[in-house]
């Protein structure tokens, strides 16, 4: 039934557009993922150093970000900031908004991972003469990431889905392309069916990658 409704020649015709959209989606996701992982890890580590002021500042940041919609944050960065002279291109706005948003969640995930590492691990490392940095790098972070990996992966899958919001600031990623294709062809079934499948395939790939990393990752982080 559904098959009759699908125009395969049309699909072949619009596929290149979707592929360029996919590239854009991947660019935003990878950049946003890396930036938010770095910010989130740094803030997560800072939270374990018992400093009240630092804790309050980071708490305000994560609390504020997590209690406001990402779409509004994106609007604010893209349309609000130019008023005070900060003009960003669509792509930059999207990456910054997604990074700031995702980092707030990753901060909490990393903090949880770090807290799960037993105090005795820190003590054993100290007693052996390891510096704070070495203790973090060799002993604590590998164990924390092992614990944090499943929630991190689901956070990244949210991030990838959230890149679709970049369409509202006219970044030519998959969702934007699908709207464009729909308005040009008047074929909503194909126009929105294809991106749905693409998003789903990205998700499946991410799952496979996470399974691979969680089994091999232990070896990789060991150095």
């Amino acid at each position: 039934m559904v098959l009759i409704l699908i125009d395969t020649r049309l699909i072949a015709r619009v596929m290149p557009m979707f592929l360029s959209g996919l590239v854009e989606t991947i660019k935003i996701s990878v950049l946003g993922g890396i930036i938010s992982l770095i910010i989130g890890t740094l803030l997560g580590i800072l939270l374990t150093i018992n400093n009240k002021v630092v804790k309050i500042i980071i708490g305000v940041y994560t609390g504020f970000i997590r209690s406001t919609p990402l779409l509004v944050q994106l609007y604010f960065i893209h349309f609000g900031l130019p008023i005070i002279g900060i003009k960003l291109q669509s792509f930059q706005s999207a990456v910054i908004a997604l990074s700031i948003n995702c980092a707030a969640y990753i901060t909490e995930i990393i903090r949880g991972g770090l807290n799960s590492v037993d105090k005795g691990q820190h003590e054993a490392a100290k007693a052996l003469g390891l510096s704070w940095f070495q203790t973090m790098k060799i002993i604590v972070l590998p164990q924390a990431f092992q614990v944090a990996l499943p929630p991190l992966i689901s956070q990244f899958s949210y991030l990838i889905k959230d890149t679709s919001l970049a369409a509202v600031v006219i970044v030519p990623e998959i969702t934007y392309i699908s709207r464009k294709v729909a308005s040009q062809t008047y074929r909503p079934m194909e126009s929105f069916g294809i991106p749905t499948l693409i998003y789903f395939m990205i998700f499946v790939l991410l799952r496979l990658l996470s399974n691979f990393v969680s089994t091999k990752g232990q070896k990789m982080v060991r150095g």
Partner: protein
Amino acid sequence: MKKIIEINKLNKWFGKHHVLKDINLEVCEGDVLVLCGPSGAGKSTLLRCINLLENFQEGEILVFDKSIKENRANLRFIRKSTGMVFQHFNLFPHLTVLENTYMAPVNVKKVPKEKAIELSKELLNKVGILDKIDAYPEQLSGGQKQRVAIARALAMEPKLMLFDEPTSALDPEMIKEVLEVMKQLALSGMTMMIVSHEMGFAREAANKISFIDQGNIVEISDKDEFFRNPKHERTKAFLSKIL
């Protein structure tokens, strides 16, 4: 005799609780000192002050003639030259037995990896774990874990070993294998400071015993003197209960 540890007027509080009161103590090269006493007396806390895992408010601790709180270089030197064995082993669960053992010499002392591995294997052989070098800590029994922990500490080639209740978390049948390793170590001339309730071990391997109660060193004397002729009433009462 060369002094390894010298503690002068050490005072420590946990909040308002005065855990260590005016502690003075000397440990010389080759000494095997066992700290005993009721739980909560401050034995472990005292031991943990020696490599500054536990901070203290007053007094001074010199290890290898270096004041531990004077600067970071002293602290680093003392920790590098002091091995520590914990009640709960604290092995690194994401590293194999061999990696646990050579990790510190490679990263802290910058020993070439092959050399560190060679030494690690030698030590693991000495503590009887050579067949398990590629296992992860979770695959070992408690006694095996503690023997690996001892090898890990020895891999740094320390001049002083601290033992914080090394057999308290072990099943009775595993205590012996760990004590045997410690006895060998004592015989080899290692300077050791041990918090333990194992009076049989103390009788065999220690040369000095100290009784600690309520944050005070009630008594410290040579082993024979301590068992045969305890001076303090508190010590007598304690010994009569546990022997």
